[in-house]
């Protein structure tokens, strides 16, 4: 039995919540039934009004009622920090820091342990907000997300700033999409639907598997006569790569939450493009005890063609995670979501 815990980012259900097909309670109940007791949200997706208008206490009280009713635990409020709020000028430094403090307050109101910072935010802003985060018992975690990775100079700069600040309130939230070891099938199928010739799509998929430098792949696709969507399909390899899960080991003392990104879970509980067996083994080796939160992102790759079934996709990933973590019980749903 592993001490790693299972959770879900409600981002996973965006296709349903956007259309009003699932309420917040539907989402929380679904996670609880699957034994995924950690709940992560994007604050402004789940709570209308955040941050510009604010969120009423009644909505926060309802959040806490749901957490209690379903035995779930608030894990992370993912904030955005719109430093491009003003047309033509970047938000001033002090205002950015104040904005992060505002999200720390919101995270604290929701009972969160962590707030997620987007990777493009400057380390100085987070360092300046760290003392306030410490006061509120919140950790600010920067999301390490493809195309960035743990050996990228921008991430190293963050790591150095965090060590120099010496604050435990600063850390990382790695997104498992950076360990993309195969070209996702749902991406390839989408590109085929928008007109990429099959022989070119097959070539790109194989070149990705062979770890060919993306610049060579793009040139080869051009020379094969590829245009528009074919070039776009090849360019995806500039922003995604099969980085190594073991690179997380150097940073375990600052890794407190994990995005269990996935694009497709097959009926036999496999994510064909992300090596979760290896990922879980690395996290266990590193002594990780936090949550892996499901983050389904296949929706946007199939919605042109079929209605995503986010609940079923999350269920399958939770079954996979429970198996990899050595849990005795297979997660299952009890209450169907009304269509």
């Amino acid at each position, binding site marked *: 039995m592993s001490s790693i815990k299972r959770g879900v980012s409600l*981002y996973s259900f*965006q296709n349903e*919540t*956007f*259309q*009003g097909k699932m309420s917040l309670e539907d989402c929380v109940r679904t996670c609880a039934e699957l034994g995924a007791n950690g709940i992560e949200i*994007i604050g*402004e*997706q789940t709570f*209308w*009004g955040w941050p*510009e*208008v604010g969120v009423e206490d009644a909505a926060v009280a309802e959040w806490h009622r749901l957490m209690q009713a379903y035995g779930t635990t608030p894990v992370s409020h993912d904030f*955005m*920090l*719109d*430093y*491009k*709020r*003003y*047309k033509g000028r970047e938000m001033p430094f002090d205002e950015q820091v104040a904005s992060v403090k505002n999200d720390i307050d919101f995270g604290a109101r929701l009972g969160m342990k962590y707030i997620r910072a*987007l*990777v*493009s935010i400057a380390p100085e802003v987070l360092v300046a907000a760290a003392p306030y985060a410490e006061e509120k018992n919140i950790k600010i975690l920067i999301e390490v997300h493809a195309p960035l990775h743990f050996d990228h100079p921008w991430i190293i700069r963050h790591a150095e700033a965090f060590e120099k600040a010496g604050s435990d309130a600063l850390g990382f939230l790695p997104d498992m999409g950076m360990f993309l070891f195969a070209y996702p099938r749902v991406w390839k199928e989408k590109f085929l639907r928008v007109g990429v010739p099959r022989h070119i799509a097959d070539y790109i998929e194989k070149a990705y598997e062979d770890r060919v430098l993306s610049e060579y792949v793009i040139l080869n696709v051009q020379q094969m006569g590829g245009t528009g969507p074919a070039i776009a399909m090849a360019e995806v390899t500039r922003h995604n790569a099969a980085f190594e899960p073991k690179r997380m080991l150097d940073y375990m003392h600052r890794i407190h939450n994990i995005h269990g990104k996935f694009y497709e879970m097959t009926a036999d509980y496999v994510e064909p493009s992300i090596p979760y067996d290896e990922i879980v083994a690395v996290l266990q080796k590193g002594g990780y005890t936090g949550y892996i939160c499901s983050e389904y992102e296949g929706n*946007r790759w199939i*919605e*042109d063609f079929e209605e995503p079934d986010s609940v079923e996709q999350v269920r399958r990933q939770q079954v996979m995670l429970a198996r990899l973590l050595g849990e005795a019980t297979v997660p299952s749903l009890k209450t169907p979501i009304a269509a």
Partner: protein
Amino acid sequence: MMDNKMICTEQFENVVEGGETIGFAFLGRLPYYRGLGLSMVEDIQVSVDGEEIAREAIRFSVRGKTYTLDEMETVYDDRWNFGEKARIIALKPGGLAPGAHKISFAVRMRVSYLPFVPTTRDTKELALAA
């Protein structure tokens, strides 16, 4: 993302003010997995049956407040929330004739973390009741 969910089909009508038909309206959603402060909605484009509506002739309305696109650029205290159906009004004297019309609706967003400025478009045929 959410491209095909931008135009909602349940409301499509002429807008009448003071007994005069001044344009038409439909409900539109932001094609994004979160909401956005109105100052970051850079542009909204509407066309009907291939005819582009001028930027100045578009109004955006949420929760009873109506804005021009230029006004929205400096609105820092209101949002287009996740999945929220905004009323998109296109000023067009006389409105539209009853029957089917091809509506195209695009939104350009200024997203802090993206190294590009995305425009997302949806096109649907809507029926205007007689």
